């Protein structure tokens, strides 16, 4: 009998067990081998105190249903707790969504009264934001136009972001949870190219040439973010 390469390799690490799944065989073979190991051959290792389990799928894509099946098989052993299921591959849709999230988006339009522009990540808007228009972003907002409306950067709570505008004349600015309107901390805004940022929970507006001093890290390339 030729030795068949094991489809499921179980390794012990200091964080618990790692199940390495072969990614070249069929899913059915994988399930069969996993059942065999869990239910019959590896009784001794797989009993005892609670153990954290990480499942590594390699370059195999598993649908949520398939992942559920693997989970169920492993859970038959009461002492095995699944910590994470990891795959080196994702679907095209997930990849696109991921890219949109972490990347910098460019938009070309005028945000008019009553319109809302919502974005994940940083936004470069080539156009005006009119009074009553809203721009909201998890990251930084750069408006290459007249900002007359309402801009909210860092909507998920990031306080290091900025709002920059070619012509800064907003109705209201928000960074994270700090709300500010002209005439408060930054009454001396002269409507030129400026940016708003937070310092000690206070919103300040400065001319663009102060940006390198105040937020030098903005120029650094963000990879894998």
């Amino acid at each position: 009998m030729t030795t068949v390469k094991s489809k499921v390799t179980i390794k012990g690490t200091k964080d618990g067990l790692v199940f390495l799944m072969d990614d070249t065989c069929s899913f059915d073979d994988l399930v069969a081998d996993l059942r065999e190991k869990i239910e019959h051959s590896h009784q001794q290792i797989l009993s005892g105190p609670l153990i954290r389990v990480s499942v590594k799928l390699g370059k195999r894509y598993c649908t949520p249903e398939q992942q559920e099946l693997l989970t169920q098989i492993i859970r038959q052993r009461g002492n095995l707790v699944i910590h994470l299921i990891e795959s080196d591959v994702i679907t095209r849709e997930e990849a696109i969504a991921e890219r949109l999230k972490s990347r910098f988006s460019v938009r070309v339009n005028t945000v008019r009264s009553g319109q809302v522009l919502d974005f994940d990540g940083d936004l470069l808007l080539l156009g005006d934001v009119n009074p009553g228009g809203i721009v909201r972003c998890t990251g930084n907002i750069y408006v290459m136009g007249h900002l007359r409306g309402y801009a909210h950067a860092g909507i998920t709570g990031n306080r290091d972001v900025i709002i920059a505008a070619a012509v800064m004349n907003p109705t209201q600015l928000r960074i994270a949870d700090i709300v500010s309107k002209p005439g408060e901390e930054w009454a001396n805004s002269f409507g030129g190219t400026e940016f708003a940022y937070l310092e000690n929970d206070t919103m300040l507006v400065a001319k663009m040439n102060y940006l390198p001093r105040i937020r030098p890290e903005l120029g650094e390339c963000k990879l894998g973010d």
Partner: protein
Amino acid sequence: MGIGIVVTSGKGGVGKTTTSANLGTALALMDQKVCMVDTDIGLRNLDVVMGLENRIIYDLVDVTEGSCRLQQALIKDKRFENLSLLPAAQTKDKTAVTPEQIEKIVTELKRDFDYVIIDCPAGIEQGFRNAVAGADQAIVVTTPEKAAVRDADRIIGLLEREKVGMPKLVINRVRSHMMKNGDMLDVEDVLDLLAIDLLGVVPDDEHVIKSANQGEPVVMNHEARASIAYRNIARRLLGEAVPLMKLEEKQGVFSRMRKFFGLK
């Protein structure tokens, strides 16, 4: 095949109906076949401004409900044989018709007329959606006031999503002396914010109120400054390049003399 043009503004009272009536009449005076459609169901005014109220037999809702044929509901203006009006119903409300029904009527009208001018109600609800449904182009009317410009901006945003595309702007009721003193938004300010093509600027003119009350559109009065402005707008719609008229009121001999002596 004619062109459907919707006249809209968002805010009420800026002069949609006046603009519709005068633009329609001005186009008819230039030998275009024009039909005006009032979509302000429940608050119809266009017939009053045109002085055709007492000739209404059937209305828009009668047509959509099938109580009459479209031709029966059209009122021919006796002053200009090229001009017809499809009045709105006064007893129903905006939900009495659907955008599809209006689109069908306007498409039918476009076969017989060169221009179908659709008078839109104020607001952004069903009435607006009805009015926009059949239009190929849009004219946004605003006055040089912040609130009116804000609403015009909102309307332009909504129109961009419809097939009518970029609308053209009419700035109504402009008072040149207030603009000069900075008490009123400048034409430039309005254009800078709305960023659409300007079709015309209509000065604030008492003749407009007077003629509306008499049921005669101001365009018929050749002296009135607003009349010239509306006729210029119609000419621009027909593709002529007409320069914007000077907004300053004509100065009398006395005021010119006073200015000469430096008394203001």
